[in-house]
C-alpha cells in the first residue's frame, strides 16, 4: 500500500499551498478595509456584533485546530502497517463520551448567555435611561421593487440615500410596498426585513461621520442587485439643515 505524504511531489504541493496562503493574506489586507465589511464597525451596535463574532471565531478556530488536528494526527499515526494487524476492539468509553457531551453543552450555554445579554440592545437600541439626552431619530424605511424610500419625521422623503446624525440612535421602522426586501448596512449593524403588511423596527447608530454602503439582502426579483443603500452620517446641525431643505 502506498503511503500518503510519501509522494515526491508532496514538498512541492506543500510549498505551493504555503505561498498560496501568503498571497491570500496579502490580497486580503485592502479587502478587509472594505466599506461593507461589518468588522469595520461604524457604530456601537456593529461593534457589539463584532465582539460576538470574534468570540465565536476564536472558539471555532481552537475547536477546528484541536479536533481537525486530532483527526489528521490519527490518520497518519494509525495507518495500517501490515495486513495481519488487528487493533484493540474498543467499543466505547463512557467517561470520554460523557465529557464530550457535557463539555460542548457548557460552552454553548455560555455563548447563549453572551447573546441573550446583548440581543435586547441590538434589537431595540439603548434603553431610555442610558440614552438620556439622546432621543432617537425616527426614520421610516420603505422598500419597493427596486429602490428604497426614506421618510423623515417631518414627513419629507428621499430615495436611495439616507442621512443620519452622528452619535444618535436611529430608530428605523421598515415596511414594503410589494414583496419582501431586507434593509442592511453592515457597518452600522442593522439587518431587518421590510415586509408588506407588517411594520418592523430596528436600530442603527454611527459613531463616526462618513458614507456607509449597504444593499437589499432578501431576494426580491430581477432588480435585487440594484437595491443599493447609501447612508451619510453627518453632524446634528447638518442633519437639521438637510431635513429643512428636503
Amino acid at each position, binding site marked *: 500500500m502506498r503511503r500518503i505524504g510519501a509522494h515526491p511531489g508532496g514538498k512541492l504541493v506543500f510549498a505551493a499551498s504555503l505561498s498560496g496562503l501568503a498571497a491570500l493574506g496579502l490580497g486580503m489586507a485592502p479587502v478587509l478595509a472594505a466599506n*461593507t465589511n461589518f468588522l469595520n464597525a461604524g457604530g456601537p451596535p456593529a461593534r457589539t456584533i463584532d465582539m460576538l*463574532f470574534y468570540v465565536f471565531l476564536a472558539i471555532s478556530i481552537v475547536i477546528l485546530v484541536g479536533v481537525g488536528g486530532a483527526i489528521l494526527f490519527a490518520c497518519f499515526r494509525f495507518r495500517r502497517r501490515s495486513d495481519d494487524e488487528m487493533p484493540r476492539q474498543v467499543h466505547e468509553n463512557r467517561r470520554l463520551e460523557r465529557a464530550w457531551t457535557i463539555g460542548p453543552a457548557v460552552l454553548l450555554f455560555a455563548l447563549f448567555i453572551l447573546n441573550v445579554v446583548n*440581543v435586547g440592545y441590538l434589537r431595540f437600541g439603548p434603553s431610555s435611561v442610558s440614552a438620556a439626552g439622546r432621543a432617537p431619530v425616527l426614520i421610516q424605511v420603505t422598500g419597493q421593487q427596486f429602490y428604497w424610500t426614506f421618510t423623515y419625521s417631518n414627513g419629507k422623503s428621499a430615495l436611495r440615500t439616507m442621512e443620519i446624525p452622528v452619535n444618535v440612535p436611529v430608530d428605523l421602522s421598515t415596511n414594503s410596498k410589494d414583496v419582501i426586501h431586507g434593509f442592511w448596512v453592515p457597518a452600522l449593524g442593522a439587518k431587518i426585513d421590510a415586509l408588506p403588511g*407588517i411594520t418592523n423596527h430596528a436600530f442603527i447608530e454611527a459613531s463616526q461621520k462618513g458614507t456607509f454602503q449597504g444593499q437589499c439582502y432578501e*431576494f426580491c*426579483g*430581477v432588480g*435585487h442587485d440594484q437595491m443599493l443603500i447609501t447612508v451619510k452620517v453627518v453632524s446634528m446641525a447638518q442633519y437639521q439643515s438637510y431635513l429643512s431643505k428636503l
Partner: protein
Amino acid sequence: MATVDLPLARPVPRSYGKVREWITTTDHKRIALLYLFTTFIFFGIGGLMALLIRTQLAEPNNNLLSASQFDQLFTMHGTTMIFLFVIPVWSAFGNFMVPLMIGAKDMAFPRINAFAFWLVPLGGLVMYSGFFFGGSAAAGWTGYVPLTEKLYSPQVGQDLWILGLHILGISSVMGAVNFLVTIHRLRAPGMTWFRLPLFVWSMEVTSALVLLASPFLAAGLALVLLDRQLGTNFFNPAHGGNVILYQLIFWFYSHPAVYIMVIPGFGVISEVLPVFTRKPIFGYRAMAVSMAAIGVLGFMVFAHHMFTVGLPLPVQIFFMATTMVIAVPTGVKIFNWLGTLWGGSIRFTTAMLFSVGFVLMFLIGGLDGVFLSSLGIDYELNGTYWVVAHIHYVLVGGSLFAVFAALYYWWPKIFGRFLSERLGKWHFWLLLLGFNLTFMPMHFLGVLGMPRRIATYPTGRGWAALNLTSTIGSFIIALAILMFVYNVVLSLHGPKTATNDPWEGNSLEWYATSPPPPHNFDDLPPVESNRPLRDWRLAGHATNPPGTVLP
C-alpha cells in the same frame, strides 16, 4: 445457521425486451440503480447550472447572463440539487442496501417502490418544462411569498415548480413509508434494534423525518397555488393575508429536510470507518441515539432561518437555544468518529478518504453554522454568502462526500466490479481542493457584506478576487466530477472481479454475491452482534473464494 425460503421465481416474459424489463421492474436493486442513474443526471444538470452561476459572478458588473436568467438558474440549481439529487440519491443507496443489510429479500412494498421512483423523473420534468413556457421558477428554492404570487411571478413556470415539488413530495412519502415498514418488519432473525447497521438506523430516522415533515411543504405550496390560480388571499396582506405564515410552514419542512439530506451520510460514514479501521464504531448506541435526537430536535429549530423577519424576541431566543442544543449530538457524532479512527488500523481506500474528508468538512460546516445560531451575529450574516458557504459545507462537504464514500464502498457489491482506486484518489483530492477553493472564500464574502442571490455586484467592495477564486474552484470541482465519470465508464467496461466480501465488511450485504441475485440470499449467517459478518469470518468461515487477493 438460519435459512430463508426462496420465493418461487417469477419468470419475466422474454418478449418484453430489456427496456420494458427496466421500466416494469419491482426489484429493489434495479430500482436503486434507476434512482442512482436518474439522480446523477440531475446532479450533472444542477452542476452545469452552478458553473453558469459561477461564471456570471467571476467578475464585477458582468452581463454574461441577464438578471432574469441568473434568477432562474440559481432557483433551479438549488431546487435540483436538493429535491432531485441529494434527497432521492439516498433512496438509491437505501433501496439497494437496506434489504441486504437486514437480510431481507426485497423492500416491503416493491410496487409502491417502483411507483415512488418513477415520480422522481416526472417531478423533475414538470419543473424543468417551465423553461419552455416563458421561464422557470425564479424566486429561489425557498419560494418566499409574495414574490411567488402571480402579481410578481406571472410565469407558468412558478406553478409547474409547485406541481413538480408536490409530485416529488408524494414520491418521498411513499419511499419513507416503504423504508419504515421494511426496517420494522423484515429484519433477519436476531437483528435487534441495537444490532442494526447504523446506515439502516440513519434511513429509519430519515424516513420518519420525511413522513412527518413533507406534508407541511405540500400544504404551504398548495396555499401558494390556491393564491395564484383561484385568487385566494392566504398571503396577500391587502386582504389580511400574512407573508410570514408561509415562511413558518416552509421552514417547518425545510429545516428537517437538511437532516433528511445529511443523516444518511452519517450512516454511510459510520459503516465505512469501522471497516477500514478494523475497529467497531466508537459508541454504537450513542451514534444511534444521537441520530434520533438530531431527528427530533430538527423539528424544533426551524425559525432560526427567520431571525431577521422580526419575530418577537423571546421566540428568537428560544430558537437560538434549540439551535445551539442540536450542536451537542452533532458534536457527539464527530467525536465518536474520531474515537473510531483513534487506535485503529487505518487503510486509505478511496471510500475511506471520502469518509475522513466528510468528517473534516462537516466539522467546518458545523462550526460556521454555530455562528449563524447566534442572534447577534445572524443580524449581520443572515442572507449573505456566509450562509451559502455554510449550506455547501454541509451539503457538498457533507452529503456529497458521503455519496461518493458510499459509491466507492458499495460499487463492487452493486456492479460486481471495482472503481479504479488510482482515479478515485485523483477524484478525491481534486474535489477536496476545488470544493474548498469554491466555498471557503464565501465565508469572507459574507463578512464583507455580499448578499446571496445577487446577479452581479459593483467594484470597490473587495469582492472581485474572492469571487474569481471561487469560480476557479468550481471548475476544479467539475474536473473532479469528470474524473469520476471517466472512472465509472472504465469500470463498467472492466472485468467482473469483485468477490463477495472485498473489504472484509461487517454487515450482511457482504455475505451476498457481488452483484447479489434477485432474491439476495440463499441463506444467512446468524446475527449475534452488530457485526454479524465479522463474527462469521472469525468463526472460521470464508466469505471469499479461497486464494482471493483483496484489493
